[in-house]
């Protein structure tokens, strides 16, 4: 197995993703992610020097809509699945500024 990413990278990605990893998990994920990345590296064997960068596989372009307002759902509906709410707002843990 190649070492495409190391433990440090995994810890960094976990921090960016707001994930708390326990000691042995970091090792495990480093191993697993390396296996996945190694597999995907196979794609690099293809010669893509003459291929345009592709971010979309469906040949769609220029999908636009008119600036025409439609009614929004009611506040009750909007907040229905919120874990907590107050006076029409979503209520979340305090944000430290």
């Amino acid at each position, binding site marked *: 197995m190649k070492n495409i990413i190391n433990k440090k990278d995994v810890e960094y990605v976990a921090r960016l993703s707001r994930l708390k990893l326990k000691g042995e998990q970091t090792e495990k994920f480093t191993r697993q992610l390396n296996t996945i990345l190694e597999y995907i590296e196979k794609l690099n064997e293809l010669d893509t020097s003459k291929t345009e960068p592709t971010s979309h596989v469906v040949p769609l372009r220029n*999908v*636009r809509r008119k*600036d*025409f*307002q439609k009614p929004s759902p009611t506040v009750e509906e909007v907040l229905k699945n919120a874990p907590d709410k107050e006076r*029409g707002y979503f209520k979340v843990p305090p944000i430290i500024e």
Partner: protein
Amino acid sequence: MEYEPVIGLEIHAELATKTKLFCSCSTKFGASPNSQVCPICMGLPGVLPVVNEKAVEHMIITALALNCTITRQTKFDRKNYYYPDLPKNYQISQQYFPFAKDGFLEIKLLGDEKKKIGIGNIHLEEDAGKNIHLENGKASLVDLNRTGIPLVEIVTKPDLRSPEEVEIFMDTLRDILLYTEVSDCKMEEGSLRFEANISVREKGQTHLPPRVEIKNLNSFKIVLLAIKHEIERQTKMLEKKEKVLQETRLWDEEKQITRLMRSKEEAHDYRYFPEPDLPPLFISEEEIEKIKKEMPELPNVRKERFITKYRMNEYDSRIILSDKETADFFEECLKLGENVYPGTSIFSKDIANWIAGPVTRYLNEHNTPLSKTQITPQYLVELISLVNKGLINQNTAKNILPEILEKGKAPQEIVKEKGLIQVTDEEEISQAVDKILKENQQVIDDFKKGKTNAFSFLVGQVMKSTKGKANPQTVNKLLKQKLEIL
């Protein structure tokens, strides 16, 4: 040692659309919390964003106004970060193929010098929601009404060299955005926001020192205060041979200083990647040409024309060009005025004075736009003609202005109705002067003792006794003559 600041700006302006960038929710300001949201702007699973064509149109206009090259095949990218006002955990923005780039905006510095400020790029993105922090510090509240409102971000090159240049640049840019109706630029509603990059170097050097970014600048005043403060801070550091580091600072409104952002607030790795839910946007030549044809004359170009052609002064031109409606009103008056006084530039000066003076004063006092009043270009021209022909005096004209603005009544009609035709008959004015002099011996004595305001008091009394209709020049003349022989 002499130092000079090197300043670049990032401007966020909300685009004037009825609906959001990727969904059909209203963008109206001031609605009750979370009443203008839907599954798309809340980022619920399984929804698909679709671009608002009006936002694209505004982007083309902005790009053209700022002399940018429009990217013919533009794309969207996801900017990833976590914050409660961003329900999707990413903002749809444009990192790799921004809408347009490499433009400039020409500004006019004091003393007629012109300077081109480079525009690095402009791109389209969505706004985030708003957080409210409860006073007890136990929770925060989130309103997503603003989430998904289209924003244009304009990034300048570090071409600005003083707070004065920054101010002129901001004014010029705001005028353009207002004029082309791309944005309403209401700073108090957060429609226009700024970030500044500042570094200070020894004058004459060409390298770019590490730049300090200042966020959270929500008014023209604060932008300038923060920039001035930051230039001072960095200059002092350089004088003490200290090293200025690249960092992000916030404007602290309370202490009126910039302060370092805590590392927690910073440390972003946005992990941009192409937005898979939005297909690329192709901007065609025809589309650009069509918009070019429909674009109004830009305010900076129009201003140049007003100043050279009508010899308008800087102050009047700034007020008259502050919005398109007023400038159009001015030109409409001028067209009508040409018919009344063909070929006189005096008339254009009068119109400019009236609009920038009494009319604007009324609008400011009543906090109302010109379009909400009843005045028409015909009425203003008529009013000015009445003064110029000596039928009413300047004061009477000013006094009946509110009635024209509020009721849309023709000036001629008001003058006739109220009998305000100016008294120019010297005999009649002479009698009024005599009467006032007879009643005010004390004031005459004061005048003789050298009290100059005694004279203006007497003028006022005569005007009052004629209900303001007397020709003020005649009153002045007669009073002077009579006082001399008394």
